[in-house]
């Protein structure tokens, strides 16, 4: 057994951490929130230049990593920095799907950083059930037309194209729709980034795969790992901020960290974050194994529960300052809270876990 990172992985981690520490601060994030695409372009370009996007793909796919541990490493660092770039959407989800489809040219574009994409899969009312998609695909000569609605399509503002799921006679198909072909209004998200509601009204589309259920499930598993690792990084950052605050904030003539009740709660928080780390390791190690779905469910459930604890405890222990947006905690806490709202929340995955264990 070996829980140590390889030398290459450690180098990537160090470089990434340093780069993000130097480039990401509240000012960068606030500016990004105002920017139309919703994330700092310069940081994205820097990440691409460092080869970080390539770490999400195997050598066959044109990258230099692609294992669960590579994904976890990258996303933990992004989380630690409270990063708001679309590495998950463009990189793991869309890039991952294109790689599965063997579209090396498109994957190259993603790895080089020049391409922005968004996956449009969820629909209003579908909640976290990724098997329901009522959007319909109809053949139109050589081309296809899609009709339906897609909900909370993350990274919509920057995307040049959407990968859209829709029903075909063969099953759940995957299509590409150019952003320019649609009329939509992006909105900001809690915790950063953008999304949009898409109304598809016989929208022209290119078929990528007629039956994409299995590769979608795989892409979603990888994305779940990514967001769980990001959550872990967010938790670590929040723990650091909170511990520092307890050491510096003075009330009643002493640092509030001297109050035993706060010490014990910080200790509990630390224990739970270690649980979260182990859960992420479990999922990373089982991402390509037979028990993948069980680990997806277990990890996402645990991360959701721990995230709530970390968010609520850290805000509480900060007092009023924890409620504000001018202080870093606000952004980190909101972003961590929103992790529970993508790819299924703690309850959804609790039920999945129960069902899988019973099966």
């Amino acid at each position, binding site marked *: 057994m070996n829980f140590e990172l390889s030398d290459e992985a450690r180098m990537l981690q160090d470089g990434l951490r340093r780069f993000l520490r130097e480039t990401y601060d509240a000012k960068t994030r606030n500016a990004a929130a105002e920017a139309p695409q919703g994330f700092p372009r310069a940081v994205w370009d820097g990440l691409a230049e460092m080869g970080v996007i390539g770490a999400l793909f195997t050598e066959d796919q044109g990258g230099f990593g692609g294992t669960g541990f590579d994904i976890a490493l990258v996303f933990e660092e992004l989380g630690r920095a409270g990063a708001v770039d679309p590495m998950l959407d463009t990189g793991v989800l869309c890039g991952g799907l294109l790689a599965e489809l063997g579209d090396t040219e498109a994957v190259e574009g993603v790895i080089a950083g020049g391409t922005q994409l968004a996956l449009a899969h969820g629909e209003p009312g579908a909640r976290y059930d990724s098997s329901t998609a009522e959007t319909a695909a109809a053949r139109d000569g050589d081309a296809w037309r899609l009709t339906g609605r897609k909900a909370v399509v993350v990274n919509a503002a920057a995307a040049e194209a959407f990968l859209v799921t829709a029903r075909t006679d063969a099953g759940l198909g995957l299509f590409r729709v150019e952003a320019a072909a649609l009329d939509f209004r992006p909105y900001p*998200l809690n915790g950063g980034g953008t999304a949009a509601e898409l109304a598809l009204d016989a929208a022209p589309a290119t078929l990528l795969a007629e039956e994409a259920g299995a590769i979608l499930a795989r892409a979603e598993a990888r994305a779940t790992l990514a967001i769980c690792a990001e959550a872990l990084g967010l938790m670590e950052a929040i723990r650091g901020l909170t511990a520092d605050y307890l050491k510096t904030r003075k009330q009643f003539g002493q640092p509030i960290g001297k109050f035993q009740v706060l010490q014990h709660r910080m200790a509990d928080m630390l224990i739970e974050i270690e649980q979260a780390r182990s859960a992420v390791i479990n999922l990373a190690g089982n991402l390509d194994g037979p028990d993948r779905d069980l680990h997806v469910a277990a990890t996402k459930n645990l991360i959701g529960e721990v995230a709530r604890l970390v968010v609520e405890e850290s805000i509480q222990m900060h007092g*009023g300052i924890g409620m504000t947006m001018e202080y870093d905690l606000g952004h980190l806490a909101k972003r961590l809270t929103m992790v529970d709202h993508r790819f299924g929340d703690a*309850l959804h995955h609790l039920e999945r876990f129960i069902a899988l264990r019973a099966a």
Partner: protein
Amino acid sequence: MNLDYTDAQKTFRDEVRAFLDAKLPERLTDAGRKGRALTKDDHEEWHAILNEKGWLAGSWPEEFGGAGWDAVQRHIFEDETTARGAPRIVPFGVAMLGPVLMKFGSKAQQDHYLPRILDGTDWWCQGYSEPGAGSDLASLRTEAVRDGDHYIVNGQKTWTTLGQYANWIFCLVRTSKEGKPQKGISFLLIDMNSPGVEVRPIVLLDGTAEVNEVWFSDVRVPVENLVGEENKGWTYAKYLLTHERTNIAGVGFANAGLANLKRIARAERAGGRPLIENPHFAARVARVEIDLMAMATTNLRVVSAAAAGNAPGAESSMLKIKGTVIRQEINHLTRSAIGPYAMPFQSEAVEGDNAGAIGPDYGARASGQYFNNRKLSIYGGSNEVQRTIIAKSMLEL
């Protein structure tokens, strides 16, 4: 033992209900239900409606223009109005300053300020907290130095709720550095239009700016704005805190929040069925409801003791903790119920009429409210501080 209201109390409850049927504007309850932030005008409209009926200041004695209600009547009124989703009465003038002036203020202060609270001429805010003085309020440093007929005030207050609407602020200020820190504090009324007062908004997690920083630089305050005696402000502040603690359990808010949660959970679907039928979700809703039912009775036990003349002591700390935990759990479940539509940051949509809501309009404020209500366990004496009070005064630890 009898859990029912007396006949007289039931009659009063019916009177409150009839009044709400007739006078509570739907526009305002609708705002509450959808979580739209209330404007200054909204608050003033509701205050004026209540004042016309003589019900704005339920607890004030009739001689001061109040309704002279006892604790049970006050409870009934709060229960009924919050359950309907009526705006809360802004507490700073009515519930906080008013009682202090009635007990410690001069006749001139009572005659001048109390009617202006009722008729809406003045909007008060509370200037206690400072950047360095939160839980340890006695360490406050904003300074008032006597200069002839005036105090010269310098310093900074923070977390001043709705200070952007206020024209007056009641402040705790330091008038002496001798002895224990509690001994050198005075209670001062400051006109916010005085030169040297500056208000800066603080943006909270939900994107709203309901709190502010208030800066004082060489602000001249006439000595007649001192309440009671110099250096006795701590006593008055403590008295005020006992008033701030009325309706601290927030049972009505919790009931309204629970009803809203159930409405949403009936409308949302999970796995092809209404979310409310999901056994795991339903279990969590049931747990919080069971807790709430018991707390409502704890609350009534305290209210009833208070009506019999026993001022609540640490019981209000118990109610504060339990009440905030329950409301925060309801907020959490409501946010969870919205699913992926909790993600859109909907601060702008909800300032207006929710017409621009992304996803179902009932969910537009679910995340905002969840984040905003983290404050419940922080302000008015944090839950940690309340526990210490319970341990000291009820357990003698």
